[in-house]
């Protein structure tokens, strides 16, 4: 593709297969405590 640069390779749909292990950090424990941001959390699933 000449006119498009895609920033990410994984799609959300793929994460349905192995997701939901629950080992990731709870978002409010990181810094916010007053707003919910989940998109910046890291996945901690070793089998992803």
């Amino acid at each position, binding site marked *: *593709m*000449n*006119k*498009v*640069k*895609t*920033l*990410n*390779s*994984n*799609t*959300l*749909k793929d*994460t*349905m297969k*192995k*997701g*939901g*292990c*629950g*080992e*990731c*950090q*709870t*978002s*409010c*424990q*990181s*810094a*916010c*405590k*007053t*707003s*919910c*941001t*989940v*998109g*910046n*959390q*890291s*996945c*901690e*699933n070793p089998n*992803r």
Partner: protein
Amino acid sequence: MIHQYKNNGYDIVMDVNSGAVHVVEDVVYDAIAFLAERLPEMEEPAPIPEALVRETKEALAASYSQEDIREAMEDVQELIDTEQLFTKDVYQDFVMDFKKRKTVVKALCLHIAHDCNLACRYCFAEEGEYHGRRALMSFEVGKKALDFLIANSGNRRNLEVDFFGGEPLMNWEVVKQLVEYGRSQEEAHDKKFRFTLTTNGVLLNDEIMEFCNREMSNVVMSLDGRKEVNDRMRPFRKGAGSYDLIVPKFQKFAESRGQMNYYVRGTFTHYNLDFSKDVLHFADLGFKQMSIEPVVAAPDEPYAIKEEDLPQILEEYDKLAVEYVKRKKEGRGFNFFHFMLDLNQGPCVAKRLSGCGSGTEYLAVTPWGDLYPCHQFVGQEGFLLGNVDEGITNTEVRDEFKMCNVYAKEKCRNCFARFYCSGGCAANSYNFHGSITDAYDIGCEMQKKRIECSIMIKAALQD
């Protein structure tokens, strides 16, 4: 669902349902905008109907060359074929299944002290007292809380415990005892505690720093930015500002942690709508990890953020994002919590749909052992879930939180940000609308802007 926007010279297209993010040329941007109004979302890739291809080419002909349009249409079709454009939302049924599963408790916010040595004007905890009385958590109550966490965490190995307040350093001995107790239980139960501390820094000293650097996986240091901004909202009880006492301690603390695994975290209000200066002030003080959050306050408070403040706030995020990129490229970058976005290794869709986990995975514990859905609900009796002796007894409220997800919220269903903010903060929603399945609208506008900025930053840093 497609969301497209231009920011800092970048044309960005988000295919919300797949999570794909594209930086495109103008001709592709305009082609997608034209198609988005005419093409349905697709469960499986399919060719764009020929008539629509012709129509799109005609619409673009006045602005672009034939060659550019042809290439743009090829690129669009390729994105469709690889399920990165015009994809359908296939998660609704998935989230229903996901919600039926048994949830485990994986994180506790321990209100180790309902007391504080500062009198921050916006404190939702009412200077530490949370609509209640001053109190310190005893070791016995804290121990029961950790036991409750271990017993209710199922197969989850990593357990998170945040020492919160009020000001947790006002009950420091108990913090140390609880860390020691937690560590003593790890091996027998095959668990790993991740302790964190949220502090205003007033009582911080070398011994505490050394302990935290050994035991705390993250530390949140509360500071609002420039001296005049901080001291206006974060005074001592007798009125003096806290900046001069706290800043050197936080600088030392951050340095002693190798500038990692901490956040300097501030709150901005109606009084400092130019908060990008406070973020940059943190950076100029040498901090590398930081966050500044909008205040959450009743609309009649003079410091509350008002709807008419939004244009300036959104512009501040844009300004900050441009400077953020510039400093990163100059090798003197820093991390701003809300601009950190992991597009490739980020959370799975299950996590994105279920949000922060308040009331199910995440609970707050008061000094006397009561359980609440999160720290923001503490003291609101209708949300009392149970206590550390009996566990969760109010299953009705627990189940209400369990079902609180993106699809339970009318406002979120058609929002491009839904897989990034996961429906937002339940407490904010409740405070503004009396329901945990609504959304705090001013907060939503800010969240959307932060996501747009974060993605622009990703694009700019790849250049």
